[in-house]
């Protein structure tokens, strides 16, 4: 009776988690997308936006 419901929601959760683990790595950081290819004297910097602020937190909480 419940087999289809459980299977269905399990597949949904599995797919969502799989997408959640793979797609965020496809995001492009703003420091790469919105900076010109001029002189590089330093790292992009992480003040104000944090060093991958929410991805590190996400990894911790998973």
């Amino acid at each position, binding site marked *: 009776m419940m087999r289809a419901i459980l299977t269905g929601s399990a597949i949904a959760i599995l797919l969502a988690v799989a997408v959640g683990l793979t*797609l965020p790595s496809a995001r*492009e950081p703003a420091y790469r997308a919105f900076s010109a290819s001029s002189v590089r004297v330093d790292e992009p910097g992480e003040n*104000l936006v944090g060093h991958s602020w929410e991805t590190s937190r996400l990894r911790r909480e998973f």
Partner: protein
Amino acid sequence: MARMKFLCDADRCIECNACVTACKNEHDVPWGINRRRVITLNDGKLGERSISMACMHCEDAPCAAVCPVDCFYRTEDGVVLHSKDMCIGCGYCFYACPFGAPQYPQVGNFGSRGKMDKCTFCAGGPEEDSTADEYRKYGRNRLAEGKLPLCAEMCSTKSLLAGDGEMIAQIYRERVRQRGYGSGAWGWRTAYRSDIAV
């Protein structure tokens, strides 16, 4: 209490981008995040005008209205600030902002666009004034030190004005009277729903 506003006198702006650089340096802004930027209209044509634009700290701020977690607040100086601890990186504030002020560390929207960053009128954030934590999240708090935003302070042509709305409007009015022309207070009607009558 003062009502802090920005005013860019487009007839004086020479597109030197020093305001952008000063802002970057003062708050240690990372690459790709542009709290302030200079846009040139009619580039290379007659009537070319450059305008330095950042968060205008609007009246009835659209970003604050559409935020799904209500992370924005207004200081007693009328500065619109937000809490990065609450921000979920949805990007709505950028769609609502008439001036393109909100910036995000991530371009795609899978999961989150990261913690939104924008001009704070050099007034920090909800953290304790002038603390390391505040600097890390929102940059330097010059207002707490009794100073005005650095972009306007160091503007070489005094095109960019920052300060109490009444006072900078008066300065602009006098300028327009003296020189006989002026292209208007850019963005004021959208941001503050009032214009400077000259």
